[in-house]
């Protein structure tokens, strides 16, 4: 999978590849002494919530609060790990359904976003047509309108289309994405003209050029876009909260949030739910980190 010729080389290798020369001097030497504690402190700041989350999700109910205070290694590592919390989530809280819903919605969102996004990105980057600049500005203009400021009217639109409380409502508003279009357009532009010209001389239609010649050439950018969009879709909370009511349509973030806002808050279930909702994505991230970095930096996706 990690074929080096296929890497998105644009930003990632620049961020990671080149290190500044080590400077020498009294300031640098005092920094060398300080660096290790600073690195460890920073790492601890970002890691300790995950340690607590992972340790606690395998802890039996009666042990949840026992080792929090005073803090020790026992706070993070369960002495008698158990899968009871996960069993409870899947058997009694229908967590499996929520996971499948979120996974399906994310896959459908990614597939459609990439398909229609890459088509228009190709047209904008590689076809000269009147009004091209206007179309591009119109697309970028949507970035200036935060979704939160139109969520009320998007909700009413969904309702008028008769899509309230359906799967379609959960992905349709998200499949046209200006960030993704922008990202893919940048990559289409970097492809040398000769490739396209040769294909057209050979009698390829523009659609064939797009599908057979151009798409394979931006595969790394497609992976970046897919992963960034997948994370985005998996994280969706406010929109599903507004637009669904049917328990069968519950997505994973709603399921986790309900454990937290329940009348009777059960900490061990929250930890286990957060674990299931997070760890698969983190593992995916560890493999696709370079694509994620590339996607975020090139598109400015936030």
């Amino acid at each position, binding site marked *: 999978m990690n074929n080096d010729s296929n890497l998105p080389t644009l930003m990632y290798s620049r961020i990671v590849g080149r290190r500044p020369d080590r400077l020498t001097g009294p300031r640098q030497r005092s920094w060398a002494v300080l660096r290790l504690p600073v690195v460890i402190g920073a790492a601890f700041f970002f890691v300790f919530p995950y340690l607590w989350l992972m340790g606690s999700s395998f802890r039996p109910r009666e042990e949840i609060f026992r080792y929090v*205070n005073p803090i020790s290694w026992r706070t993070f590592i369960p002495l008698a790990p158990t899968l009871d919390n996960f069993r409870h989530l899947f058997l009694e809280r229908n967590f499996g359904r929520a996971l499948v819903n979120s996974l399906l919605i994310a896959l459908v969102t990614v597939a459609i976003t990439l398909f229609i996004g890459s088509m228009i990105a190709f047209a904008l980057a590689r076809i000269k047509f*009147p009004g091209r600049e206007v179309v591009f500005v119109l697309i970028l203009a949507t970035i200036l309108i935060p979704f939160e400021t139109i969520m*009320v009217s998007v909700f009413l639109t969904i309702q008028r289309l008769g899509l309230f409380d359906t799967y379609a409502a959960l992905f349709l508003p998200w499949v046209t994405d200006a960030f993704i279009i922008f990202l893919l357009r940048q990559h289409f532009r970097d492809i040398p003209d000769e490739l396209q010209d040769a294909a057209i001389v050979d009698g390829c239609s523009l659609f064939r050029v797009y599908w057979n010649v151009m798409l394979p050439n931006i595969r790394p950018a497609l992976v970046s876009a897919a992963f960034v969009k997948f994370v985005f879709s998996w994280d969706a909370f*406010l929109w599903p909260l507004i637009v669904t009511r049917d328990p069968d349509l519950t997505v994973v973030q709603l399921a986790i949030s309900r454990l937290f806002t329940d009348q009777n808050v059960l900490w061990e279930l929250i930890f286990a739910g957060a674990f299931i909702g997070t760890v698969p994505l983190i593992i995916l991230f560890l493999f696709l980190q370079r694509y994620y970095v590339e996607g975020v930096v090139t598109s400015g996706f936030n």
Partner: protein
Amino acid sequence: MDIRKPSAHAIERYRSALLLSLPALVGLAIFWYWPTIQAVVLGFQDYNLMSGSQAWTGFDNYRTAATDPLLGLTFLNTVIYFLMEVPLQMALALALALLVRRGPAWLRTVILVPTVTSMVVVSVIWGLMYHPNSGLINSLLGGVGVPPQPFLTSSQQAMPSIALLMIWKNVGFSMLFFLAGLVSIPRNYYEAAATDGANSRQLFRYVTLPLLRGTVVFLLITNTVSAFKVFTPIFLITEGGPINATRVVVLYIFENAFRFNKMGYAAAISVLLALFLLIISVYSLRASRAR
């Protein structure tokens, strides 16, 4: 002037471009442009979701907004949150970028993990960590002799607590852009300045910072917009409390639309928020170009 008709070849090209663009444009029209127009229209209406009744009310919603003390408070709270989150987050991001550049690669990965962790999970885990009696943070503080803090249950500490968890989640995002900005500074700038006798503090002040200005402007705009959109952690952890101390604009829009059934008023607040953010973005861009 060229008044030749486009060739058959060109027409074929336009047709392809149109067909390739059409699905995305239709999607944008239905889910971005139309709702944007609708939001403006809705702002001048009284719309009841339950009965479906819809009536023109002119500027009534905006008049209400001008005199609604709770709306004023939510804007103020959002500005306070913005002031707590954005400057500190960006300063920390720059510091971490400088650290990661010379530090181990795994540290970058660790800092980025919260950016791929969902907002809901970050909210609930930090919500538990902030628990006054059973939370991890008070027991960490206890380890260094600090007495237990009330955090989210105190109207003074609730907003800083929310800001801290958002800094934790967002700082990796800003760090990435600083890293990208840092590597784009040509190395010979540093060499030239060092030859002229600049020390490392001067290098930072007179080479690094000025050349990062584009990155800073970009991050300032995106982080500001995202700060004014804050919703999930507050909705889940404090629900705007204690005593409205964390009630922010998007939460107020949400409540008006989907709890109080005041769609028109919610739309009017949305329009005000959108205009406010638009003005800030355009102004920052102008200001950064003028210099």
